[in-house]
């Protein structure tokens, strides 16, 4: 059974077509990277997966169910969360409020979340090193565990989210998405515009996030970064998938051709 899958996915902005029959899939526990040049359609793919762009129902399947037509809030409640391109924190909300709002509308999951965090506290097991201990993932992420993952956010929790540095804002955006305890986390260019050390810190969080039970799709322009974290890679160009495979199976030349086209 495929976890998340697109079949002949198309996407439009008015008359402009951004995606032309995209087929990708994500298996449980996998990290899939999407690479491609500016304008290739990576963000459009993420927007389609999360329901921001509407599609025909059968173009996106989640656990065998057609979800292409569902609105973002419904998709999110199915356990698919996104760290959007450009972070898009809520300026009127503090860091902590930005985090809380990520989990506040999960609906039925709230009680489970709370019980999970009480248990973690009772057993004294809410330190950063215990991420791996919570592999089932349901309800692992709370304010405490997000702060444990990104301690700097705890210090700044009462400042407006947009008053932080770019890297810290990215941490808030990631934490906000985690607060819903997603089974699938989509990250759209989480390293964009950040210094290498900051990128390293943020990517260091990905294994912990995986261990909490989330499968990941990361959109990344930095090819070597993508190859390092991903189990499988898709390369996009002009709204189509031009290459896919395991990092060990695809060569630099393949990627170059898929990325820039055969003429390059």
């Amino acid at each position, binding site marked *: 059974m495929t976890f998340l899958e697109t079949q002949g996915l198309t996407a439009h902005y008015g008359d402009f077509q951004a995606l032309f029959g995209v087929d990708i899939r994500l298996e449980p526990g996998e990290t899939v990277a999407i690479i491609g040049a500016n304008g290739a359609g990576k963000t459009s793919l993420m927007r389609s997966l*999360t*329901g*921001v762009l509407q599609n025909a129902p059968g173009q996106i399947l989640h656990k065998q169910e057609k979800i292409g037509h569902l*609105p*973002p*809030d419904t998709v*999110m*409640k199915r356990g698919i*969360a*996104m760290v*959007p391109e450009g972070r*898009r924190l*809520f*300026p*009127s*909300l503090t860091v902590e*409020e930005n985090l*809380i*709002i*990520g989990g*506040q*509308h*999960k*609906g039925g999951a709230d009680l489970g979340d709370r019980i999970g965090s009480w248990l973690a506290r009772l057993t004294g097991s809410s330190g950063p090193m215990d991420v791996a201990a919570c592999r089932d993932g349901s309800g692992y992420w709370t304010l405490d565990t997000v702060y444990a993952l990104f301690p700097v956010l705890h210090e700044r929790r009462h400042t407006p989210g947009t008053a932080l540095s770019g890297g810290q804002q990215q941490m808030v955006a990631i934490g*906000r998405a985690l607060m*819903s305890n997603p089974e699938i986390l989509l990250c759209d260019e989480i390293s964009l515009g950040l210094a290498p050390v900051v990128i390293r810190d943020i990517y260091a969080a990905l294994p912990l996030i995986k261990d909490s039970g989330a499968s990941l799709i990361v959109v990344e322009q930095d090819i070597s970064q993508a190859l390092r974290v991903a189990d499988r890679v898709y390369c996009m160009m002009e709204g189509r998938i031009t290459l896919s495979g395991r990092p060990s199976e695809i060569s630099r030349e393949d990627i170059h051709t898929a990325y820039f086209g055969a003429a390059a």
Partner: protein
Amino acid sequence: MIWIDTIVQGILLGGLYALFAAGLSLVFGIMRLVNLAHGDLIVLGSYLILLLVSALGLHPFAAVLVAMPAMFLLGWSLQKLVLNRALGEDILPPLLVTFGLSIVIQNALQESFSADSQRVSAGALETASVSLGPVTAGVMPLLTFGSAILVILALNHLFYRTAIGRAFRATSDDAVTAGLMGIRPDRVFALATAIAMLVVTIAALYLGTRSNFDPSIGPARLIYAFEAVIIGGLGSLWGTLAGGVVIGVAQTLGAAINPEWQILAGHVAFLIVLLIRPRGLFPREA
């Protein structure tokens, strides 16, 4: 002494204008919707209270409690069925729709209640007054001002201290990203308008009990509300109260000099504030 008395009356009148304005400010703040029917909705509320008072023999303060759920539902449905469809990138459709709604409400009220002016009687409260040192203040104006403060405290609490308020602010910042957080902007907007209608009902109580009203006076209340919001600075409810007070004081001072200047003085004060502080007295930063 007469001046102090005049100023106090003006401040208390400002409470009424703040009540007119708070609902408008709430809706504009959350969905950038300028509701041109806001004044008419207040008048509609006054007629509803009048109906409850005359048909059921309720005291106006009891009638307002009955009217509130009805107005809440009206606000919810209005937003859900009509206004949400008009919202979008373009700001013109909501203006046209609410302008049309304003006319519909005025005509419907005229058909049902005639163009005659009406008044809701608050009984002995109307003439009751208390002396505060050198000045004497009516109980109704004091209740109005007190209600305005309570409404603002309640709205601020809702906005900044509750999960609903968080969703309001997030949706107002960025409705698309709010959707990614599991929030349904259309429902947030419906709830916001429904809550604004609760404030409208309170405003309607004081509009109906403190002066005569008829189906055509909505637009003028809308103007006062607008002026209060803009003087106070968009996004600040305490600013809106301050804006109401500025207009109220200007009106009573104007009237004290020459009774014909009452309305004019309020508008002049608005223009002066706008000239000196184009973004209002208490603009929200950035």
